[in-house]
């Protein structure tokens, strides 16, 4: 298959002529212990076809039973998306023939999803807020995993046969469907990314999904259509399937906007179809034609009884919800007094929770940010892990900062101490002891070093004597170098000024 042979218009030109309308279907895999309708483990990466029961294989005579925790997770997601929760809802069979389901139907919900009519506010990087309306969130089950064999590219085209692993078949899924999103204009690709990021964050915060996109815990199908500016009626849409990273969501929406614009400009109608996203070429290729009237012959699942909710149950679940991520961010930024830019960097670096824990453990917000954004992030980058995965605990930061605050070590030495702790040399205090890292607090050696530095830079010494106090930095630098950083810079400055008979 050759990818990316379609004509595209430049994004700016597309925006001049057309107004994009978006829509998303996001599938969230729940992290329940067992599957939606069977007691097989819901686990990733196990030996193929071992996390299966007769129910998952659709063997004759089996009876599915609903996982109660999955239903509660679905309700929590609905509540977090400000949805109404159905008083009564049913499961339905969605009939289709494809080897990813051994039953020849997917158990899903059709006319009456468990959650409907919600909305969430999506904040873009510059603070602009878009409200995305949620049409529904419904319960269903994941399909098995197909591996196409014999084709040159590993894709289905040219494959001779396929191998099926049903470990994933029956894993609980919540499908979240938006209403059409209008008015995003040129921010559409950015909004697409921010929306999927927000859903991922919400389900992770709820604790109902591991939300790891690289494992397919959160998967996005992105619908895009264009209409000329000023026109009410929507254009024909395409659905780009399985766009499975945040960056890919942004790129896929941008690409489809550009492709649609080129097709429309050439006077050809858009073909309503699914598109496949190719990360390597950052383009989409045609999938299969899709009509609104795909005939899945939905009918109520006769083996499962309705789910009925009441206010007491829903309110108990609502009361159990954690603080929503957006509100938590606002609260923390206000508490810590960070600027918008500082806070955004903290969020993007993934260290907000680490800072929160560190502040709770007793370190000031400014010092906590300095640690997590500075030395810890830098070491995490070198080790190619998330800062939170480096093994630095809030207690460690408390101890390091305590050593600095008490004057025992300075900032520069504290980095060596951190290295020592991460290398397994013991507690910060032990590393200071063993590596001999304490600052030189005895004035005698400091004065020797100061005299040496002043003698080495007589012109600077004269400037300071003449009242140019800011020049003292050069002498401090010389002293720090001479003491290999083991001096308290503040004390050194005092002593230099004293030595020169100047008032600090």
């Amino acid at each position, binding site marked *: 298959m050759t990818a990316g042979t379609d004509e595209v218009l430049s994004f700016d030109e597309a925006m001049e002529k057309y107004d994009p309308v978006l829509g998303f279907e996001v599938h969230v895999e729940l992290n329940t*212990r067992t599957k939606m309708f069977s007691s097989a483990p819901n686990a990733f990466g196990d030996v*193929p*076809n071992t996390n299966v029961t007769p129910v998952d294989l659709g063997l004759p005579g089996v009876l599915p039973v*609903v*996982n109660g925790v999955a239903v509660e997770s679905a309700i929590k997601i609905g509540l977090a998306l400000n949805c109404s929760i159905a008083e009564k809802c049913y499961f339905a069979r969605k*009939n289709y023939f494809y080897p990813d389901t051994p039953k020849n139907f997917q158990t899903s919900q059709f006319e009456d999803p468990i959650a409907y009519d919600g909305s969430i506010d999506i904040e873009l990087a510059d603070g602009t807020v878009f409200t995305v309306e949620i049409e529904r969130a419904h319960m269903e089950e994941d399909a098995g995993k197909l591996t196409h064999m014999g084709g040159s590219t590993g894709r*289905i085209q040219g494959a001779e046969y396929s191998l099926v692993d049903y470990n994933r078949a029956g894993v609980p899924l919540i499908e979240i469907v938006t209403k059409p999103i209008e008015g995003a204009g040129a921010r559409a690709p950015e909004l697409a990314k921010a929306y999927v990021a927000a859903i991922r964050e919400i389900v992770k915060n709820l604790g109902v999904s591991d939300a790891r996109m690289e494992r397919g815990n959160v998967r996005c199908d992105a619908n895009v259509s264009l209409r000329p500016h000023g026109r009410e009626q929507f254009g024909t849409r395409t659905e780009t399937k399985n766009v499975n990273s945040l960056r890919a969501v942004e790129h896929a929406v941008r690409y489809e906007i550009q492709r649609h614009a080129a097709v429309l400009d050439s006077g050809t109608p858009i073909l309503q179809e*699914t598109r496949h996203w190719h990360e390597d070429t950052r383009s989409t290729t045609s999938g299969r034609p899709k009509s609104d009237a795909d005939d899945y012959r939905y009918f109520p*699942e006769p083996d499962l009884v309705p789910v009925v909710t009441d206010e007491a149950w829903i309110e108990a679940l609502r009361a159990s919800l954690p603080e929503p991520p957006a509100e938590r961010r606002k609260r923390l930024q206000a508490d810590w007094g960070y600027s918008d830019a500082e806070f955004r960097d903290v969020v993007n670096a993934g260290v907000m929770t680490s800072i929160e824990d560190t502040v709770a453990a007793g370190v000031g917000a400014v010092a906590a940010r300095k640690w997590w954004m500075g030395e810890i992030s830098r070491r995490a980058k070198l080790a190619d892990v998330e800062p939170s995965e480096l093994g630095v605990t809030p207690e460690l930061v408390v101890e390091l900062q305590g050593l600095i605050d008490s004057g025992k070590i300075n900032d520069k030495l504290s980095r060596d101490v951190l290295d020592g702790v991460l290398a397994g040399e013991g507690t910060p205090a032990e590393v200071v002891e063993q590596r001999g890292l304490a600052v030189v607090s005895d004035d005698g050696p400091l004065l020797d070093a100061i005299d040496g530095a002043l003698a080495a830079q007589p012109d600077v010494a004269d400037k300071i004597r003449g009242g140019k106090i800011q020049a003292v930095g050069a002498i401090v630098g010389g002293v720090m170098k001479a003491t290999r950083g083991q001096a308290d810079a503040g004390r050194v400055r005092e002593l230099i000024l004293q030595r020169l008979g100047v008032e600090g």
Partner: protein
Amino acid sequence: MAELNRDDVAHLARLAHIDMTDDELDRMAGELAVIVDSVRSISEVAGDDVPATSHPIPLSNVFREDVVGTTLTNEEALLGAPDNADGRFRVPAILDGE
């Protein structure tokens, strides 16, 4: 309810992946129409105040604890498969799916 005609039956047969001859389609259209008619007689009794039901027993919220139970082994899982390879079910490459 609309009449069930021969085209409907042909459409259903296609959806169900069942090959049917012209004779079979003719016969089935007649037979299914009788069944649809009998079912329709229920809607003459049940008025708008009777909600459609999917289940004859008035049960709801039959849930399972989220506790892992017994699973099949890989060998057991593949026992009924016409073909397998590499611990997985082996099926013909099918092009019209997702």
